[in-house]
């Protein structure tokens, strides 16, 4: 199906989007869904670094078969509007693991939009998103969880934390839970804060320079998003890409 027109900010999923960036991408980009299906019992992991000097839209549709496990990890450090959308449908006993980091300044909007549908019983999902921004930039996480009426024993969690390095940057978290089953666990949390000044002074008092102190604290902050990424090489690649974006951030 081709959308005739671009969405507007009245569409819930585009509420905090950069509409100008989207317009520069064009309508055609909206049709480009990457469709992935995992067979029953299959395990698949994907780690990616997204973002460039131009706007980017990544749309992923995941169908996770019975007892299968999908893991997705993303560093979103675009130099222009960069949006990653993931639509997930979980079969019985399947698991979806998502770890995402938006990081950057330069007034850019970077966002994750997920819709996780627990369509059948006993599926689990876990989403951990961290946003680190400065210089008027925005980081968004719009996370929708839908639990079907018969999807008992669903266990779904999402956790968002934003770290703003200076006034003027912003972070938006929009958790949306739609639960029709009665025997489920759905946990969600969202906090936004500043760098821990006590920790920064403690580090400096031991000789760590301000830039290194900030890097260590940001590394610790975003680390949660990649805890479940067990491939050491991929873990390092995503972390390094995020920390490279931190160069030049306000101290």
């Amino acid at each position, binding site marked *: 199906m081709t959308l005739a027109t671009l969405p507007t900010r009245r569409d819930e999923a585009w509420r905090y989007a950069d509409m100008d960036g989207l317009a520069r991408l064009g309508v055609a980009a909206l049709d480009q869904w990457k469709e992935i299906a995992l067979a029953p019992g299959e395990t698949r992991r994907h780690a990616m670094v997204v973002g460039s000097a131009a706007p980017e839209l990544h749309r992923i549709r995941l169908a996770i078969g019975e007892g299968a496990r999908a893991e997705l990890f993303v560093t979103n450090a675009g130099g222009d509007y960069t949006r990653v959308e993931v639509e997930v449908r979980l079969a019985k006993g399947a698991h979806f693991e998502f770890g995402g980091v938006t990081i950057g300044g330069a007034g850019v909007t970077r966002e994750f939009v997920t819709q996780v549908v627990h369509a059948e019983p006993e599926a689990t999902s876990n989403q951990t998103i961290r946003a680190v921004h400065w210089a008027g930039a925005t980081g968004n996480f719009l996370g929708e969880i839908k639990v079907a009426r018969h999807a008992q024993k669903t266990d779904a969690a999402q956790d968002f934390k934003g770290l703003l390095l200076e006034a003027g940057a912003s972070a938006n978290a929009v958790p949306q839970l739609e639960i029709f089953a009665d025997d489920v666990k759905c946990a969600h949390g969202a906090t936004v804060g500043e760098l*821990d*000044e*006590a*920790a920064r*002074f*403690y*580090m*400096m*008092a*031991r*000789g*760590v*320079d*301000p830039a*290194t*102190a900030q890097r*260590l*604290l940001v*590394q*610790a*902050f975003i*680390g*949660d998003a990649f805890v479940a990424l067990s491939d050491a090489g991929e873990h390092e690649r995503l972390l390094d890409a995020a920390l490279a974006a931190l160069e030049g951030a306000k101290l």
Partner: protein
Amino acid sequence: MMLEITNLHATVGGPDNPTPILKGLTLHVPAGEIHAIMGPNGAGKSTLANVLGGKPGYDVTAGSVTFNGQDLLALDPHERAAAGLFLGFQYPVEIPGVSNVQFLREALNAQRKARGEAPLSGGEFLKLAKDKAALLQMDMDMLKRQVNVGFSGGEKKRAEMVQMGILNPSFAVLDETDSGLDIDALRIVGAGINAIMRAPDKAVLLITHYQRLLDVVKPDKVSVLADGRIVETGGPELALRLEAEGYDAVMA
């Protein structure tokens, strides 16, 4: 003179709402000296430590501090550390997500870099850390854990001394390092201070409320800080008098 504090005035609360805490404090500490600072609550002991460490939120309004002839107050906190100053925290800070090993290796190598020295390799650093942890009877496994996270009050203070051992400063300002320690830990920490800092080219400013730490770390000098000034300086016997008679009697 290693540390020379002259007529130091400092406020907290920022420029809009300043509260004077230090009101003309003068204190000289030569190399080779362990100098205890005692005084009633609210006298300015922790403020003195924080001003020397360069903690944000403290404003020096008059006076000077020179450290080995250098203007200490002109340096950022990390530059003070690289110059050889160590601030032992009354309440060591927890840093989730950063291990002691990573933190201290970054700190030591940042200091070495600032002094024009080559960085220690991972192996060299671990050997050093192991030696210093052993000195404070701290298990190496604790150093692999996150900085101060889940440590008891006593463990945090011992970890501070391990950090001091690894960083090997020439001057330590220890702010109530004895608070939160049981008798055994007190002896271990006191012995650690002696082992690390008792040297002709080093000095310590030891801020404490109690004689019991001074029984282990025998100070050369004892000064009483009251209402933002040093009101009396003497030998170790002054601490014993304070312990026996209290501040009011001694300062009367």
